[in-house]
């Protein structure tokens, strides 16, 4: 029983078709089918490996007898064919219908499924080009809604130009117009220089994980000196595998965030990045729920920071956290100015912040000085962290629920923590270890501010 029609979950079960939801007749329905090359792109890496193995087997199978070659080829080739066949069926049975302010997806071979998405509930539209698809000139369109289940709809794959047109179309329809819309013109805001990105990612490797890297050589030296060859070998292989893992992480980050640009369009913020696999996200205005500016310890000497955001629906499908990155690296002052601009032209430095009382030192020695929090009439801002630093920013009209918590140790000291709940994502805002009475006042004020902001938004 969703209270009100405003539940952001746009998709409904197929049976639940309200007459009121039907778009007016007479509007043209646009039907999309997946690109015929989809099965190959979907198979991606696995398919590539299978084909390679099969071919190699055919070429260099002379030594090991004919039947072995035939078997090997049949098994690997068979799996590859099955993979492609599955993809072909998916392409064959799936169709996308764009009608009025609604996107409908029909799929399923035996069990038919029909899923509908109300486009005014869309939280973001992304065009992704993984390498396996990019080779064939294909792209995925990913529509994120804030629904409680299956938050994103992935159209895999369409021809790249079709995908871009569909993105523009979906965004235009989500904001109300249903005409064929050209891609909205873009005002470039920022581009992360390659050099800065690479250096920042290298610096990010400088962390406690490097200590793990030292275990290998230590084992090797100790093992070698004591004549334990086994230990030495374990040490060397540990070093190599950990080193490779680190390099792989580095490569992934650089590959993902290469050529990172942010632009401003009427459709919303447009975020583009990627070296081999590219991604273009569009987040419509007002869909950003909360933002954080994070400075890892190793970046602080350079004054760099990262900006990440909460967008409803993103947190669920995004295990790697790449989707929530708004700026992978930028100067901290720029990042603060950017976030201030993004959230309605507020100077973050001028938001009055307070600090926990001195006795909080008994609960968090040292760190208590770095738990600043406060609000102005638009935003709630919290700065915390002694070594790495984080600034959390939540607009009042985006706060969900609020909490006041206190553990036994805190209560013995008369302290309490205020927490602001936002949608799932990297930003978790709190004013920690406040004086209990002050914390309650802060909570009550925050409730009032959030209510006023919601009402102002509904009137305006």
């Amino acid at each position, binding site marked *: 029983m969703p*209270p009100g029609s405003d539940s952001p979950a746009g998709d409904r079960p197929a049976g639940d078709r309200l007459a009121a939801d039907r778009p007016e007749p007479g509007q043209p329905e646009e039907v999309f089918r997946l690109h015929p090359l989809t099965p190959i792109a979907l198979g991606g890496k696995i398919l590539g490996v299978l084909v390679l193995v099969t071919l190699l087997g055919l070429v260099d199978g002379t030594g090991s007898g004919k039947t072995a070659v035939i078997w090997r080829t049949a098994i690997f080739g068979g799996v590859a064919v099955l993979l492609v066949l599955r993809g072909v069926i998916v392409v064959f049975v799936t169709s996308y219908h764009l009608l009025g302010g609604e996107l409908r997806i029909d799929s399923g071979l035996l069990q038919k499924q029909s899923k509908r998405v109300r486009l005014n509930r869309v939280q973001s539209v992304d065009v992704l080009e993984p390498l396996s698809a990019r080779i064939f000139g294909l792209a995925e369109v990913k529509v994120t809604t804030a629904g409680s289940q299956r938050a994103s709809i992935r159209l895999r794959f369409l021809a790249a130009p079709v995908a871009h047109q569909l993105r523009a179309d979906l965004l235009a329809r989500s904001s109300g117009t249903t005409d064929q819309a050209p891609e909205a013109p873009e005002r470039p805001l920022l581009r992360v220089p390659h050099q800065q990105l690479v250096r920042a990612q290298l610096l990010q490797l400088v962390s406690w994980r490097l200590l793990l890297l030292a275990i290998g050589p230590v084992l090797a030296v100790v093992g070698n000196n004591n004549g334990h060859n086994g230990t030495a070998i374990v040490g060397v292989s540990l070093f190599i595998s950990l080193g490779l893992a680190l390099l792989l992480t580095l490569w992934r980050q650089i590959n993902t965030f290469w050529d990172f640009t942010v632009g401003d369009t009427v459709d919303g913020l447009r975020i583009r990045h990627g070296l081999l696999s590219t991604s273009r996200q569009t987040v419509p205005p007002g869909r950003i729920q909360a933002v954080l500016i994070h400075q890892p310890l190793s970046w602080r000497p350079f004054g760099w920071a990262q900006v990440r955001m909460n967008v409803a629906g993103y947190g669920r499908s995004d295990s790697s956290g790449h989707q929530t990155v708004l700026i992978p690296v930028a100067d901290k002052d720029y990042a603060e100015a950017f976030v201030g601009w993004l959230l309605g032209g507020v100077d973050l430095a001028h938001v009055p912040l307070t600090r926990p009382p001195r006795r909080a030192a008994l609960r968090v020695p040292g760190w208590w000085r770095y738990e600043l929090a406060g609000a102005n009439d638009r935003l709630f801002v919290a700065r915390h962290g002694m070594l790495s630093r984080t600034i959390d920013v939540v607009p009042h009209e985006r706060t*969900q629920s609020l909490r*006041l918590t206190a553990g036994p140790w805190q209560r013995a000291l008369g302290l309490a923590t205020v927490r602001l709940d936002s949608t799932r994502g990297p930003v978790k805002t709190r004013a920690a270890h406040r004086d209990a009475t002050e914390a309650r006042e802060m909570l009550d004020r925050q409730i009032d501010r959030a209510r006023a902001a919601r009402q102002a938004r509904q009137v305006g």
Partner: protein
Amino acid sequence: MCGLGGRFGHVSGDAFATPTGTTWSRVSPRLATMRRWLLVVALLPLAGLVVGLAFASGIAAVVVAAAGVVVLAWAWTAVGRNLRSWGYLERDDDLLVTHGAAFKKLTVVPYGRMQLVDVKAGPIERGFGLVRVKLHTAAATTDAEVCGLTPDVAEALRDRLTALGEAHAAGL
């Protein structure tokens, strides 16, 4: 969260009180009855151990039994404290929920932010005629749940909340 977390300690603390002039709606005492039954069931193996030990060594049996009694007495009162810590208050624009005796918690859910109100009950709760009401918002960390309600109270609360949610709906 409806678990047994935060049940140790005493109920007090001004920061977690209701606004002046209002009082918490309390949950059914049957919640404590249920938890005490669960407690007794959980301690049954200990009783078995005591009986077994009595044949082997009288002193050990007495020691274990005494420890069991102490644990039981302490947990018994802790359940009572936890019961008294639960409370909810329907205000004009939001619902306040509090619980926890040692780890105190006060959650404020604006009606305009509610997406879903759930009434549910586990098999044991159902046996004791209890249900819980859970409020969902777009935030995953919202954990506003009132447990230990009787079904009629819970359904009335759900209906009121749903109506209020519709009246206040603010989208995201």
